[in-house]
């Protein structure tokens, strides 16, 4: 097998070798809209210094290192430092609560965590249960707290700027882990490899078609596959001029970024566009974003009305596309050169073989709904789920990877998303497993039983709806709703908070105790729940 670039070398070292060391890797824009330019050389030397620290702390090839930071230059440098040391990076959402952190970091057997002072308290609460954890590096404390909680600035002051690593590496060497949710059980860590770089680069070039002088902005958090692949790696590996914005969604700030940074190519999410849609047209007329030439969108289906609104307001084409944590790169996309059909995901990329299969895993008839599958073997395909090889095996049938999504292919080769084929909830582009939410809610003493489902939502695509069975003598109240919301925020993440609560006397289950979510979905939509013969006795 031919060696591939180490992902860090592809993104940094190769550009420096080509004489681009002093050119801008990205312009960093803080929450207060102040700016700072970072060159390839700066990212290279900062990540080298962190890599030296990791190695000195005993991190070796294959060790897992978690990054628990909000989007920041330190996150980016830490990510590349981990890749250079040939350890495996796992970027975790800074909104994660204690249970979510514990599940993921125990699953990947994290040896070291890089975090900041304000997030450290969450880690300290679970530290004793992180059985493989050896060290915590804190980016914003001046002194070590003890022998294992260390000040990164202090260590950096004595760390050399050179770090030797092999620029070429066996392509199947694990590089990073991306957690995703399933219908049942705990989140699954999709393991990605350094050899993914060819898919990452080629898909970026094919879909975004960015010209030399164009400025690109990806709004996704790096803890999300989109943010990591198309917000960090792809633009750096292709010498794309880009901005990075530290903040979360804020309509005023985002429009200012588009205007002041003269963004040409903007990669965002349908939920963000739907949130912007809530603003009056007058709000947009106060900003000048005439430099914007193309908008891209990913995470959930882009509704035709949102597509038309964005095209009218921003006066440019909007290209929706599709990929997953497991695929590692875009698989199906609308893109320049292909006529956009509003509501469609577009067509498969040049090197991707995409099919719709029926329940017997045969080709579905044209125009029929079926399982969206990809012929396996593309370079960025995940190589396993961490510690769950049996679940990995279940994702394949013969030569095909089964996405878990239902779709339709029309006569002209366009793919149209229908829904998930399982119980996973896609809320604002985040996949949330019902099990994780239910487990946390069940820990609330007033709750006897619980089931959650996804329901259509005008902003989030799907919202989480919780059906609660309360203990005797407990009455539903706003205070109890707040208790549920805060429990989910602190244990899992704010993205997993149920937006609606329904109180029921019993959760519908089959005779073996499995929650009948189809019944709940029917109840929610006021439809006939269908065959109830498998439901346990009332």
């Amino acid at each position, binding site marked *: 097998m031919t060696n591939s670039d180490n992902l860090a070398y592809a993104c940094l070292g190769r550009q420096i070798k080509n004489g681009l060391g002093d050119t801008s890797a990205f312009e960093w824009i803080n929450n207060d809209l102040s700016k700072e330019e970072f060159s390839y050389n700066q990212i290279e030397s900062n990540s080298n210094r962190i890599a030296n620290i990791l190695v000195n702390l005993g991190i070796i090839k294959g060790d897992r290192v978690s990054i628990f930071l909000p989007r920041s230059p330190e996150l980016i440098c830490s990510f590349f430092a981990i890749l250079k040391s040939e350890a495996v990076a796992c970027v975790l959402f*800074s*909104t994660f609560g204690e249970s979510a952190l514990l599940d993921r970091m125990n699953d990947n057997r994290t040896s070291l965590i890089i975090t900041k002072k304000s997030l450290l308290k969450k880690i300290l609460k679970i530290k004793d249960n992180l059985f493989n954890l050896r060290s915590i590096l804190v980016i914003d404390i001046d002194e070590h707290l003890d022998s294992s909680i260390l000040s990164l600035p202090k260590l950096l002051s004595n760390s050399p700027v050179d770090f030797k690593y092999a620029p070429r590496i066996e392509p199947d060497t694990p590089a990073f882990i991306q957690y995703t949710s399933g219908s049942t059980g705990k989140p699954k860590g999709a393991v990605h490899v350094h050899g993914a770089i060819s898919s990452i680069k080629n898909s970026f070039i094919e879909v975004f078609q960015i010209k030399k002088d164009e400025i690109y902005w990806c709004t996704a958090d790096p803890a999300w596959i989109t943010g990591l692949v198309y917000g960090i790696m792809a633009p750096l590996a292709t010498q794309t001029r880009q901005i990075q914005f530290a903040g979360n*969604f804020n309509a005023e700030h985002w429009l200012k970024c588009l205007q002041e940074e003269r963004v040409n190519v903007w990669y965002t999410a349908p939920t963000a566009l739907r949130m912007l849609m809530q603003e009056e047209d007058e709000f947009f007329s106060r900003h000048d974003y005439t430099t914007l030439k193309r908008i891209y969108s990913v995470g959930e289906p882009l509704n035709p009305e949102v597509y038309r609104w964005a095209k009218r307001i921003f006066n440019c084409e909007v290209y929706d596309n599709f990929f997953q944590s497991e695929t590692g790169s875009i698989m199906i996309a609308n893109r320049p050169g292909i006529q956009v059909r509003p509501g469609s995901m577009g067509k498969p990329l040049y090197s991707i073989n995409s099919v719709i299969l029926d329940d017997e895993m045969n080709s579905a008839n044209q125009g029929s709904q079926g399982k969206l599958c990809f012929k396996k073997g593309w370079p960025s395909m995940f190589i396993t789920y961490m510690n769950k090889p049996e679940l990995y095996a279940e994702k394949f049938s013969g030569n095909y990877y089964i996405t878990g999504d239902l779709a339709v292919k029309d006569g002209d080769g366009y793919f149209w998303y229908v829904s998930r084929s399982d119980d996973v909830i896609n809320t604002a582009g985040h996949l949330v497993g019902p099990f994780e939410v239910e487990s946390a809610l069940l820990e609330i003493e007033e709750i006897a039983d619980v089931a959650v489902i996804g329901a259509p939502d005008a902003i989030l695509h799907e919202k989480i709806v919780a059906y609660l069975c309360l203990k005797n003598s407990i009455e539903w109240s706003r205070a109890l709703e707040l208790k549920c919301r*805060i429990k989910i925020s602190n244990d899992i993440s704010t993205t997993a908070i149920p937006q609606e609560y329904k109180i029921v006397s019993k959760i519908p289950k089959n005779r073996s105790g499995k929650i009948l979510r189809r019944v709940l979905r029917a109840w929610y939509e006021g439809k006939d729940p269908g065959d109830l013969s498998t439901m346990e006795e009332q």
Partner: protein
Amino acid sequence: MINEQLTNVFRGVFGDDTITLNDQTTADQIEGWDSMSHINLIIAIEIAFKIEFSNEEIRSFNNVGEMQKCIESKNQ
């Protein structure tokens, strides 16, 4: 001046006993204050101060000072 009760609400919602507030405090300065947890905060304030915010009010707060003024106006 931000009153003690509001600080306690913030500490409860964000699970952080070290939070201190002033009029200029914004979401950017408090870890975990995003659009979803903002709803938690609003519900908690409504319960604690026995008031209700309108949708316009919820969207209008640029900092803690503006939130405090709104609470005070409803409690008068």
